[in-house]
């Protein structure tokens, strides 16, 4: 009798989500669904924010970027961080993009693996942010983002980021082998580039709109006027 009760208890314990083995594809679908929910919540939350503080909106976008990197981890080298950092560089400038990039590299790596490579990833994404700040005036013209050039730049950024991170291999391999090392990683670079193009095509416009609604950085003309009045 006791055995039957124990069996029933075990049966009840087994009827919960922990007993379901979804497999890698099932988990990927769950992760994409979770990321979509976070993205939807981000859009809704952003509309209710009335403050012009860019810190709040950057924090919300960082949550989306970190979640995207962690949840899309099963697909090698496909994640939205590179494109988001590029957009942050375009809209918020180099300094903020460096803080943003470094924080995302550190926090996401606490979940998927932190080590020496975090420094290289933070450096790589910071360089992407700086690039975004440099090309900002050419990509974002008359309050409109030029999507096609941005797609090509984002694809290029996939390669550049991967090559910067690959520099970490010089800690362990002979420099003579470095070019071959880069060459062997090209399929993964292509994945990163294709993912970046996809994220630019689908996310760049909505994310750009969200970012521009909350920019509190003083425009250069304002700074110039301020400087003149000071003088």
């Amino acid at each position, binding site marked *: 009798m006791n055995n039957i009760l124990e069996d029933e208890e075990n049966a009840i314990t087994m009827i919960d989500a922990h007993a379901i083995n979804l497999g890698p594809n099932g988990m990927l679908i769950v992760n994409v669904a979770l990321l979509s929910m976070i993205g939807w919540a981000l859009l809704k939350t952003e509309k209710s924010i009335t403050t012009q503080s860019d810190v709040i909106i950057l924090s919300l976008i960082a949550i989306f970027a970190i979640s995207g990197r962690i949840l899309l981890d099963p*697909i090698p080298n496909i994640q939205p961080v590179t494109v988001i950092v590029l957009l942050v560089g375009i809209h918020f400038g180099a300094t903020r993009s460096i803080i943003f990039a470094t924080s995302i590299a550190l926090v996401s790596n606490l979940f998927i693996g932190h080590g*020496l490579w975090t420094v290289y990833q933070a450096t790589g994404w910071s360089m992407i942010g700086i690039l975004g700040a440099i090309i900002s005036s050419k990509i974002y013209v008359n309050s409109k983002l030029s999507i096609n050039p941005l797609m090509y730049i984002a694809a290029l950024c996939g390669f550049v980021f991967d090559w910067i991170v690959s520099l970490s291999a010089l800690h*362990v391999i002979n420099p003579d*082998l470095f070019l071959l090392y880069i060459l062997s990683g090209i*399929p993964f670079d292509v994945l990163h580039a294709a993912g970046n193009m996809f994220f630019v095509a689908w996310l760049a416009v909505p994310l750009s709109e969200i970012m521009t609604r909350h920019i509190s950085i003083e425009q250069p003309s304002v700074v110039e006027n301020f400087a003149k009045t000071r003088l």
Partner: protein
Amino acid sequence: MFLIASAFNSMNPMIPYASTFGIISILIYASVNKQSIAKVMATFTLVFVLITFSSASTEWNQYTNGLVDDVDDPHYGLPDSWDDKQAVCFHFPEGYTPSNLDDGRHHFDSNGTDFKIDKNWNSTGGCVGGFEGYDYGLNLFNAAVEATNSTFSYNYTQFYFGLQIDSIAGISPCAAYTCATDSSSGAYWEMLHNGAYSLVGISDLILDSNSVITWQITSY
């Protein structure tokens, strides 16, 4: 000219992928309106790359593996019966070799029989060989571990870039060498393929019919 011709021949397997991508891209350009072309093309590109990644990556690995010069004869010192067959060697640092393997380099056949000890080899440990038909490094590695009843069982960490081998036969690199907490110096299980440093990890390694994988601890 010969180099260009040989490079073209080596890259031939990639041409079907590029051709298929080109043809479908042209069809998309011709049939989709300009407003949604970026989204359609970007989605198609990503799906195409994801679908073809496994096979294209395998072809590319074989191509890049061919560019690495093998160091002398990777089968040097291994039993003649293993010529043209695959093998996995485990070399341990002095003082950190499992006690049953510290008298030289042991040689196990693919059934796990320890049939030869090379006491003059310059490192201690063991080689498991005589395997045939393995295409992937991880499969050969696991076959070698299983053949020896887990004498060379390993622990690993799955990172997004692949597997990192943490210990083999219970020996972790930082037990044999000093590892700084900030990772500025340390040690790791290094993998050689046919005597040369492997450009890809064990989970991405494509094998030759006579590949020799060597594991050894290296400090940096």
